[in-house]
Structures are given as C-alpha cells and as structure tokens.
C-alpha cells in the first residue's frame, strides 16, 4: 500500500512536470508565428500608428497571415529597463526600439542586430536616408544597425498671445534674453516653460541646449571615456547653470518633478504653459493654432558665452530608433522589412510627420509643417542624447542626479563632479574593455 501510494505520487508529479513542459513548448510554438514588436510608443503616438498602419497594409496587400503583436511600455525609463531585462535573458523581441548608444553597439558587436546599412543598400535606399538622420542613428564608427523612427525637429514652441500679454515683442536670441522673457511671463501670471522631471530625459535635454547649439556633440565622445572631463567643458557649466536658473526662479510648472511628459504636453497644448520644448510630431496638434497666428516656434537660443557661430537652430533627431533581431530575420521578416522601407515615407506624411528619407514635402501638408521643414533642412548637425551615450551606469546616474538637481538636493557643482566620478569608475573600464 505504502509503495503503491508513493508510486502514485511520483506518477502525478511526473505528469504535472511533463504537462508544464509541453504547455511551454506549445505556447512558444504558437508565439513563433507572431512578430513581437516592442515599443515605447502608445496608441496615441504617431510612430505607433505608423507601424500599425504598415502592418495592416502589409497584411492587406502581401501576406494576410502575417501577425504582429505590439508590446508597449510608455514610460521611457521603464521601457529601457525591460529591454535590458530581455537582453540579459537572451529574449530579444523581433523588432524593438533602442537608442543609439553603448547597448545598441554591444548588441551589434554580438551579431544580434540586422545590418541596416546593408539592407538599405540592397534596396537602393541608403543614399535617400537624410544625412542628419543617418548621423543621429549611426554608431561612433559610422556603422548603421538601427533605423530612424522618424525625422523630428525639436525646438521651443510658444503661445504668441501669452508673449504679447507679457509685453515680449522680440523673440529671445540668447539665454539671457530667454530668462528675461521667462521673468516677464512669470510676472504676468504665466508658467513660462513646461518641463517634466519624472522622465529624466526631458530636463537633461533642455539642460543640454546651450552646449548643443554652441559646440555640437563631439566632446561627449572623449568625456564619456574619461579622456576629458565634463567639468573641463565650459559648455557643461553653461548647461547646468541654465537649468539651475530655470529651477531657482520658478520658471517651471509647480510639481513638475512628478509630472509625466504627456501631462506636460497636454498642459501646453491646452494653453496652461507659455512654452514647451517639443518635437515636430506635435505639429498636427498645433497647426490650426499656428495658422490662426496664436502659436509659433522659436529657434534654439544662442549661447552668448561661446564665441563661435551657432551650429544649430533646431535639434534634428529621429526619436527612439528601430532595431531588428538578426536571429529572427528570416525570409518573411525581410519581406516585411522591404515593404516597410518602401512605404515609410508615404505612410509618414499621411500621419503628418516627416519621413527620414529625403523627399518632396506633399502639397497637402500644413503651412506649419512646410515652415518647420524649411528650417529643418538648414541644419548641418544632428542632436545627440548625452544621457544615453555614456556607459549604462553613468547614464542611470545622470537620470538619478538630474532629478536630484532639479529638486535642489544637489548643486550644479555636485552634479558635474559626480558625473565625472561615475565616468572614471565605470565609463573608463567600460569603453576600454
């Protein structure tokens, strides 16, 4: 009886384990037929709609059995964390979004990413890719393993009526004038500039403006490796001091440290804030007010502490780029890729965003799009995210420290010193190994 009972227990356990193993195989087997697209963009974002439309069109025109599953994590920091988890677990999605930076470069070095340059050359589209967009997504050595999400231009958008009411008749040309304009707006009861502190990239990008427009981004390549220091770059001090001035003088929304970027942009579009640092993808939501003369965009102010010419008036960037998992890039995926590239420009303009490929802007585009595009094509350098070009530990440290900085928990000096210390401890070994 005893033996029989124990035997029964063993059989039940073995059956349960076999069932579990079988279930796992079956689920992964069915999942193989579905293309996993991991994105930071939500249903309301045009980049998400663009890919949804491309998938739907591919299904309708080429392969009705093609299935794609979108996994969305809206918060960029959380999105990146989950992607790192996928990487560490060797479970990369078929298509995913990643910034150009050390992690993408590491994946390419491990032969995990499709060579986008080779694919575009095969399709004869490589030379059509805008040079600015290409530079933005290319690695330090010029390799191209990620594909631009779109062609965005970032600058400061503003409500003209709020400026007029505050007595600002001329657009600020430099940061001193910009701060003066903020003061006038504040005195007139306005919240001058919309920034969120919850998504660390936002204050980091705004902070970076005096550096970007003056010197471009080349110095980051040496500073991130510890060959030079952040503290040794005068433009870094211009950057931290500019953000400090915005915080200290209460030119930012109350409680901005815990606001989501969506709330910030909704607030700006609803007329709650006078200015916002925003992407051109919001143009479809702003073009009506633009045509009515109520809203405008200004050029990135000139750094008056820097003697050289202003290198950029709008920050050209491509959003968070797309990467294709090489292990899953079979014939079917390649066919889908070809279709995507072929229709990317057409589908982009349907949604009111600029294509990363050079083409004539459609006649039907709004006046704001045309005016903005005219300024975009004048740019000779592209934007760089200084917050994702360092080693992963320093990037995270920047995220944490900028939140401390805008909350007044650390000073500008501490911010820069801690940044250099992190580079020395983590960046030097990371880039040298």
């Amino acid at each position, binding site marked *: 009886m005893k033996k029989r009972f124990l035997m029964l227990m063993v059989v039940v356990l073995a059956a349960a384990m076999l069932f579990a193993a079988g279930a796992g195989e079956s689920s992964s087997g069915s999942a193989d037929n579905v293309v996993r697209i991991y994105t930071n963009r939500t249903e309301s974002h045009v980049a998400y709609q663009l890919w949804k439309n491309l998938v739907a069109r591919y299904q309708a025109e080429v392969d009705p059995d093609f299935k794609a599953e979108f996994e969305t994590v809206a918060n960029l920091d959380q999105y990146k964390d989950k992607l790192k988890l996928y990487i560490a677990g060797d479970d990369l999605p078929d298509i995913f979004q990643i910034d150009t930076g050390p992690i993408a470069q590491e994946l390419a070095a491990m032969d995990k990413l499709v060579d986008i340059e080779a694919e575009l050359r095969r399709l004869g589209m490589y030379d059509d890719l805008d040079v600015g967009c290409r530079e933005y997504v290319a690695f330090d050595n010029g390799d191209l393993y990620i594909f631009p999400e779109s062609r965005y231009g970032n600058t400061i958008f503003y409500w003209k009526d709020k400026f007029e009411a505050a007595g600002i008749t001329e657009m600020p040309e430099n940061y001193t004038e910009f701060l003066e304009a903020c003061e006038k707006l504040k005195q007139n009861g306005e919240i001058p500039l919309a920034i969120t502190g919850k998504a660390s990239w936002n204050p980091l990008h705004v902070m970076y403006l005096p550096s970007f427009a003056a010197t471009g981004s080349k110095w980051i390549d040496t500073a991130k490796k510890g060959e030079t220091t952040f503290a040794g770059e005068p433009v870094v001090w211009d950057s931290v001091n500019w953000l400090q001035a915005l915080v200290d003088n209460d030119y930012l929304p109350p409680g*901005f440290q815990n606001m989501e970027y969506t709330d910030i942009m909704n607030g700006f579009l609803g007329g709650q804030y006078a200015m916002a640092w925003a992407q051109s993808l919001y143009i479809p939501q702003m073009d009506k007010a633009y045509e009515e003369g109520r809203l405008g965009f200004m050029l990135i102010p000139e750094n008056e502490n820097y003697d050289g010419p202003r290198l950029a008036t709008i920050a050209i960037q491509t959003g968070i780029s797309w990467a294709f998992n090489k292990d899953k890039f079979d014939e079917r995926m390649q066919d889908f890729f070809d279709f995507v590239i072929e229709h990317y420009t057409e589908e982009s303009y349907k949604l009111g965003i600029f294509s990363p490929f050079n083409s004539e802007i459609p006649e039907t585009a709004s006046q704001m799009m045309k005016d903005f595009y005219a300024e975009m094509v004048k740019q000779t350098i592209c934007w760089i995210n200084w917050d994702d070009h360092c080693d992963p530990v320093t990037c995270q440290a920047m995220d944490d420290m900028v939140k401390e900085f805008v909350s007044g928990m650390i000073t500008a000096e501490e911010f820069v010193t801690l940044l250099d210390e992190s580079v020395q401890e983590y960046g030097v070994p990371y880039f040298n190994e």
Partner: protein
Amino acid sequence: MRGLFSKKSTILSFLLPALAIYTAVVFFPIIWSAYQSFFDWNGFSVKKFNGFDNFIRLFTADRNFWPILIQTFVYTILQIVFQVGGGLILAILLSGLSFGRSIFQAVFYIPVIISSAAICQIFTKLLSVSPVGIVNTILGLINPEWEMISWLTIPKLSLVMCALVEGYKSMGTYMVIFYAALIAVPDDLIEAATIDGANAFRCLVSVKLPYIRHIIIANVVLVLNNSFRSFDIPYLLTAGGPGTSSELLASFMYKRSFSSMQYGYGSAIATVIVLICFILAIFCMRVFRPEEG
C-alpha cells in the same frame, strides 16, 4: 485511511511536493542571487568573479546605500504606524458599531483589492499641483499658500506620502484581522470589567487590547517583513524620487540591476535585503516568543 495518515512517510509524501516547489521558487533564487553577487556582469559580458568587491563597494563607496537603508527603516516604522495602528483603530470603531457595520467594513477593505497601479494613479491626481488636485484645492480654500504644496516632490515629504498611500492600501487587511480578534474577546471578561466600573475606553485599554496582544505582535511582524520588501507603491508613485528621497532598498536593487545593468551588484543588494529580513525575523521570534505556560 486513518492508519495511512498516521504514518510519517505519508505525511512526508504530501509535504515534499510543496517543499520542492518552495525550494525551487524561494530558496534556489536566494542562493542563486547570493552566488551572483560575487560576480561582475552587465548582461552582455562574460561574468567575472570579483569576490566580495560588490559588498565592499556597497558598504563603503556607494553614496546612496546608507541613506536608502535608513529610509527603508523609517518607511517600515511608518508602515507599522499606518497599517497596524490604522487597522486597529478602524477595527475598534467597527466593533463599536451596531448598525451598517458590514457596509463600512467593505468600504475600508476596497483599497486592498484595488491594484497598486490604480491606487498610485488616483493619488497622483488627488495630490497634483499642476493642475491643482482635489486635496490642494480644499487646502487652498483654508490657506491659499497650501494650494501649491507639492506633496510628491518635496524631498522631506515624498517618503511619508508613499508610506501613507501604502498604509491606506493595506490597512484594510489588518482591520479585518483585528476585527475578528476583537469580536472574539469573551463577553464575560467585558462584563466583569464593566461591573468593576470600567468605562468603554478602560475596557478597551485594559481588557480588549491585552487580550489581542499576540495578534498585534503577529501583525507587526508581518508588516515589518513586508515593508522591507516594499517596491510597487514608491516605485509607481514617485519612482523613488525626487532624487533618491523616497527610494527603498528593493527599488534601489531593481535600478542597479536592470537600469544600470550591474546584475552582480544588484544581487549583492538583494542578498543584503534577504539577510536583513532574516535578522529581523529571528529578532521578532526571540523578542515576541510566547511566554511558557
């Protein structure tokens, strides 16, 4: 059948599967994590054995570790106050009700079954400054300056607010436990106290609370251990911010592991959390051991 269950081998055969699962999902990860803590690994590279370097760096060079450890202790104490204290007060009030008790019981218990994400979203809107949320709107009616209190972004307030929200979410559980204990206090004890001239408050302090002392201690131990592993509410409400002012050990470990990609270092933090929980559990077992006899 009774004979079968009287045999130790039969009982063991029932316990073994549970033990095997528990070992696989609890003990094995703990041991594996402790093993990982002796390596340097960023998710891509080859793992490099670095001995106790991660622990040495954590205790001696990480500027964030000690403040976060202290914050975790403060958070734990606040949790005991909000969850055990709040739950006990609610249970006492409920036990005094003779009408509509079940309605209030259900209302107080609702936050327990709402997801943490939803609770955090609700509180983010309630405590919002821009646009002004309900809490600040009401406060602004009393004093206009209070309308601009940024509850979640003032470094000195953010931790307390996280503890308050977690306390609000969880106190219903302890309320139910305390309520069950309070209604189990024998009537003859209360009657005897009443005959001796004790009023309701005196009955509560001198009869009911001493009678449910072990339940209070058990709940304190539960909250103590749960709070040290708290993650969701502070992470969702403030993401540990502003800066690291509401960061707890668990979210610190998460960020070091998955954001900074220092998996070995994160494992070292996880090992420290496990050790602290073990020490606390042993401490509680010794201090609150029931008196013999």
